[in-house]
Structure formats: C-alpha cells, structure tokens
C-alpha cells in the first residue's frame, strides 16, 4: 500500500462510471434510423467524403507540439530546482540562469525564424 493506491481506487470508480455510461446509452435511447443522420454534420450541405485533408492536420500543429516538448522538459528541470531552492544557494541560481539562458537561445531562434507565427 502506497500513496498511489487511492488513485487507483478513484480511477476504478470513475472508470466504471464512464464505461457504464457509454455502454448504457444505446439501451436507454431510441433507435430511429435515418441515412442523413449518420452523415458527418456539415451544416446541411452535402458532407465531404472524408475529414479535411483526409484526416491529416496542418504542420503548424506539429511544430507547436515539438516546441511544447522543449519547454516542458525545461519545466521538468525547473521543478526539482525550485523544491530544493533553499539548499542550493547562489550556486543553484547561477546554474539555473545558465540553463534558462541556453533554452532561451533556442526560443529566440524559433521566434526569429517565424516558428511562433500563426497565419
């Protein structure tokens, strides 16, 4: 038994609730078949045969996701530093400033290359 057991209990309760809701829905609701109903909804016009771009998404979103990883890793390094802040002293601050500056170089590069533009 650790601190994480209650998390599993809560996950079991909420999971059971969610799965139950998904499974019960077809039984409680009516069923009236209509060909137009099962088409994708596109405000009444004849729906396109598949989602935009065949289910592919613009590359901008991938760039955002990669940028997110860079900064998320930075955050992950900042957290232990922040928790042990009192012990690390000025040495820790200088080291962390150097680290933030290093990541900032990448940030400025992305900014200058237009990676943060969204049009």
């Amino acid at each position, binding site marked *: 038994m650790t601190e994480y057991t209650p998390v599993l209990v809560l996950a079991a309760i909420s999971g059971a609730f969610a799965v139950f809701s998904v499974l019960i829905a077809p039984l409680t609701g009516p069923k009236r078949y209509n060909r137009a109903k099962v088409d994708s909804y596109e405000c009444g016009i004849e729906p*396109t045969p598949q989602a935009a771009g065949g289910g592919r998404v613009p590359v901008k979103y991938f760039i955002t996701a990669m940028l997110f990883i860079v900064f998320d890793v930075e955050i992950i390094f900042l*957290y232990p530093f922040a928790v042990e802040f009192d012990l690390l002293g000025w040495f820790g601050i200088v080291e962390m400033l150097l680290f933030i500056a290093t990541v900032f170089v990448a940030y400025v590069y992305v900014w200058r290359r237009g990676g943060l533009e969204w049009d």
Partner: protein
Amino acid sequence: MSELFGNEAWWVIILKALLVFVVLVVFTLFNIWFERRVVARMQHRVGPNVWGPFGLLQSLADGVKLALKEEIFPKHAHKVVYFIAPVIATIPAFLAWAVIPFGPEVTIPFTDTVTPLQLTDMPVAVLYILAVTSIGVYGIVLGGWASGSTYSLLGGVRSSAQMISYEVAMGLSLVAVFIYAGSMSTSEIVAAQAEDTWFALPLLPSFIIYMIAMVGETNRAPFDLPEAEGELVGGFHTEYSSLKFALFFLAEYINMVTVSALATTMFLGGWRAPWGISQIDGANEGYWPVLWFLGKTLLFVFLFIWLRGSLPRLRYDQFMKFGWKVLIPASLAWIVVVCVMRRLIIDDDLDPTKILVVAGVLVVALLVVQFIPERRTPAVEAPEPDAFAGGFPVPPMPGKQPVAPSGAPVAPSGEKEA
C-alpha cells in the same frame, strides 16, 4: 505531509474516493446551473428557474434527458476509438482530485478513525495533477479524430495545440510557488501558506499568469476557440450525442473546477479560512475548512463565468501569439526575479518591506506613464473618397459638400461664394 497517507484502512480509502466522486458530480451539476443563472443575470434574462428551488434541478433533468436521447454512430467514425475517447477524457478529470486537500485531519462521524480530508498526497502531487490533466487532451484529440468529420478534426487539433501551449505558461507560473513552499505536495503547500501569507500576494505576477493560463487550459471563453460555434459548430464533440456527449461535458466542467481548486490550493491558502474568519477559534478545525475551500473554488468558477459573460472570443493567431510570445517570456523573467529575491530574503540581505516599496514605486511609475499624453505626429489624412464624384451623376446629400480631389471642400456649383 501527514503520516496517514498511504497507510489507511481500505474502507476509509474507498469511502473517501466515493465522496470525491460524488462531490465532483454534484459540483458539476451545480456549476452548470450556476453558470446558466449568472450568465442569464448578466444578459438581463432569468435563466433556468422551474425545476426545483431556484431551478437547481435543471442540470439533473438535462442529464436524464441526454440519457434518453438517441445515440448516433456517424458513418465515418472509427469503430473503437469513437467509444473510448469520452472515457479517456473523463477518468483523468476525476483523478486530478485525488491530491486536492479539502481540509485538515478530522474524525469520521460515528467512528474513532482520524483521517485527513484529502484522498492521498505524494511528494510530487502537483506534478501528478499536471500529468493526469494532460492525459485528458488525448480524449479530446482522439474524439475529434475518430469522428471522421472536418469540424471535429479541426476542433480536436486546435484544442490540443491550445492546451499544450498554455500548459507551458501554467507550469512555469507554478515554479515560484514551489520555491516559496519548498515542496510539491499539496498539503505542504497549504501548510506553508499558513506560516507565510497567501502566495497570491508575494507572487502576484505568477497568480495572474496562472489565472490566464487556466482559462486557456480549460478551453473556456474568451479562449474557447476549439468550440467556436460560429466556425466549428461544436468543435471536437460535434458528432457526439447522448451520454457520450454528457461525458465530454462532465469532463470539461470538472477540469474547470480542477484548475480552480488548484489555484485555491497554490495561491489562496487552500482550505485555510480567510483573514478575519481565521481569528475565530476552530475556524481551521473539523469540517469547517471544507466550506472555505469550496467558497474559494466557487470564486474562481464565478470568475470563469464572468469572463464568459463579458469578453468576446479571441482570434486563433492572437491567442497563440499571446501564449508563446507574452506569457512564456514573462513567466521566465518572473522566475529569475523570484529566485534572486527569495535568495536575498533568506540570506537576510533584503527586507521584504523594501520589495513592497520598490514594487509600489514601479506601479506608481507605470500609472504615471499611462497619464503622460502620447506625442503623436499628426497623421497625414488621406483625402476622403468622394462617393458622389464631384456632384455627378448624383447630386450631394443635403448638408454635404462634394470633396475636391485635393481634400479641400469645394463650394457646390450653382451657389455663390460668400
């Protein structure tokens, strides 16, 4: 962190887990009603007021109605992922509440068992919250993708891009709190604020950045671009109906309460009574703190609703630009300031009152700068386009003079010059 976490009896754990679940579901039902009532008041309407006292049972009735609606399985939807997505969105929304502290240690009624009013706690509790709430993004992006519809897909990717963008700012704004509290455990952060002051005061910039990021993180107005009705119908849940839609709705509202509760815990002293009430004996003992905690959380929920009632939606490029080019550099700069400031305070080289003085001077300077009239070079105004082309073929409207190409008004023809 209490010794009890991880060493409790099974029945206590199950009881608390069930309580958290019930509280969240009831809180969601209440919030939907609360939002509808408040927005209605802001728009000079009445809002739901028929079912139950003040219409409180309205959202319950809506839930039952949703269960009785037909479930539609779209033609292009993915057979498996379409059903799993709402489940993936719902479970993490509940899980985040495992480490939110509701109150201090209490005795369970009718027994002698002492237990903290918090399901569990761990040394990395806040990191855990950030981790599980991120899993909720999968539910949204998979739901949007699996529907096989253009609107859903666009809503799904927009939503995920937005959530990860604002998660960076959110994560950075919490660093300052960890520096002050020296811990990532939620109960210890609350305890640290009891010794110190509420972190919202010394860390005001972090608090503001967190509040902006939490609105972006939960896809709420004015950042509700993923479900912008005007362009994307409903966003990622366009193709969902019946109880699966209800699950997405539930997850969204729980997420809203989760970030509010996290804001309460990190910045507003958690379950501790606000100043004034805390002077009363016993205000921070027993079951009373639950009231303070829910009150503070409700304050944030009201803020969400207020924002929705008063602000128009942003454009997507403005929104992303704001997140990446303003919030992230601002929070990084603030972290550097906090590091140096905190170190100086610990080393006794700096008196906290001095910081207040400097901050006050800065604020006053900013205000003064606001009142300095901007010196503008008078812009060269382009000559007004002459819609009537000098009185031909349409004569000028009464009271108007045709404009000459040079910009100077010319006397209408047929009139003598004075």
